[in-house]
């Protein structure tokens, strides 16, 4: 596999993660093109989070290879080019919203003025401008989630790896999240997102269905409906899932 950093921001081949006898990710081949929003869909335990963590360098791969922003993993240098939003809130409850954002800007070596310049529009976007100096520990779950997203965006990375960014976010705000993701995309950045809200997947350029650590189907949302002969992605997932199961039994 040659360096395809110009075309693919993420590329894996035969990626495997095993914990003892349990296989969390099973020979995954994934390609995320530059400038697209790729949605990784699947039930809990499908291996989405494990995949994202391997791509961030937080977990070692058991087998296979992975390229992130054109570098062969593991390579710590990718860190400056990615923005990772974990599933957990992962913020400092004892720090204010501002201090959290500031810290996650500082670690990327951003100068103070630059962080503060970016903070304002970010706070407006997550609708928390009035909460800048509130301790994160005092915020509601949904608010924390929004701050967490802001922390992943502050250094404006070319590749965003977002693990369930819309969990616990109310429907109205969820719409504005997706608008923002589209805006980020329009500036040439790439987003790999995991979700189990099937209806959201329509916003993605391409989606991949994951089940038992494997990619069972992949394509544009419309294509997926056609291939499955379903009206919505939920049904489509069920059909692909059944086919995969039959395939296993054969």
């Amino acid at each position, binding site marked *: 596999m040659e360096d395809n950093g110009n075309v693919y921001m993420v590329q894996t081949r035969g990626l495997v993660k095993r914990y003892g006898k349990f296989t969390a990710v099973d020979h995954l081949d994934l390609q995320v093109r530059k400038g697209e929003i790729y949605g990784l869909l699947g039930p809990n335990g499908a291996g989405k989070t494990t995949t994202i963590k391997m791509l961030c360098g937080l977990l070692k791969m058991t087998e296979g290879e992975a390229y992130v922003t054109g570098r062969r993993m593991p390579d710590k240098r990718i860190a400056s080019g990615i923005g990772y939003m974990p599933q957990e809130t992962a913020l400092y409850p004892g*720090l204010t919203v501002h201090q959290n954002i500031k810290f996650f800007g500082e*670690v990327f070596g951003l100068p103070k003025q630059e962080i503060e310049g970016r903070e304002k529009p970010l706070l407006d976007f997550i609708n928390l401008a009035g909460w800048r100096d509130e301790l994160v520990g005092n915020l509601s779950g949904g608010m924390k989630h929004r701050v967490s997203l802001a922390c992943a965006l502050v250094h404006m990375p070319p590749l965003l790896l977002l693990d369930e960014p819309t969990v616990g976010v109310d429907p109205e705000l969820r719409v504005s999240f997706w608008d923002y993701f589209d805006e980020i995309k329009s500036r040439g950045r790439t987003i790999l997102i995991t979700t189990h809200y099937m209806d959201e997947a329509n916003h993605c350029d391409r989606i991949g269905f994951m089940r038992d650590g494997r990619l069972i189907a992949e394509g544009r949302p419309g294509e997926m409906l056609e291939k499955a002969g379903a009206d919505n992605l939920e049904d489509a997932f069920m059909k692909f899932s059944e086919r995969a199961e039959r395939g296993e039994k054969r």
Partner: protein
Amino acid sequence: MKRLRFLTVTRRVFRDLRNDRRTLALIIIAPIFVMFVFGLAFSGEVKNIVFIVVNLDRGASVSPGGVPLSLSDKIVSNLDREVLKIEFGDDREAALAKIENGEAYAAIIFPEDFTSRVLADVQGKASGSATAVELLLDRSNINVANTITRTVNDALLATMDQAGVQPPLKVESTAVFGQGAKFMDFFVPGIMAFAVYMITTLLTLITFVGERTSGTLQRMLATPLTERDIVLGYATTFSIIGVGQALLLLVIGILVFHITVVGNVLLAFLVIALLAVVSQALGILLSSTARREAQAIQVLPFVVLPAFLLAGIFWPVEAIPMWLRPLSYIVPPTYTVDACRAVMLKGWGIGKIWIDILALLLMAAFFLSLAVWSLRVGKD
């Protein structure tokens, strides 16, 4: 810039502490509290012990017709009244009953012919056996009993000296170090090391379990920060805090407890900072054994107690049984206590405490590497 990236972690931990009044209070108040509790209650100086004097001595005239001299009165007047609270009794039986009832710790009984027998002894006219004063003593509290015996002996020696009676043998002791040293002079260096060790380990342990469970540790590791940056960042924060605490204790020690410091305080701060680095690495390491904060608290007695008892804070390492002594040398505060004491009480320089510094440096290197390793293990 990249090399200094760990400072972002240092700054963040400081900000976190600044927002958290309770933890800030722990950092500032806990060492002071420990110092006062031990300094006042456990000062090692026994005082106000009820002591009964039964003086049956009739005295004797040195020259015929002169004023009768009573050596027993002189001895009683030489007893240290700060240590002993003297009550006078009429006979041995009553004094004994008081000791048995716990109303007094000891009684001294001077026989009727005490002065005359002593004088006869001095003049060489006596039977050859020394004159005895009887001391009835409750030895159930060794510390009190030893103090009483010492006080009585001091009074006897002082009286003989005043009477011009020179004992044939005498020990001349000269204080090489610690001239006029009080318990607090000895104790403050120990408590500085102990407070820094305990609070640093506790704080990093709890903070780091938080980093692990909340996901912030993972989030940091997905940025350009490395495991090394994180450990170094924490180490820097806590060595600064440790020195701050030591400074605070030192100021209180000097102002409130009037301790004397003869050496270079900066050198003492250096060993305290090294101890803080070791302690925070230990805290990070221990945090990997806990999934929740409650579990972290379970390991604390194993961290705190050995240091408390074995590091030479209250009694010297030499007082610890031989078979237990190797343990003293693996608890990190031992070296800091030793070095701080040597610097503050004896005025020793780096040339004489280099072994302690080396031991702390090795421990720091060892525990820091283990802490970094413990963060990397999570990737498997």
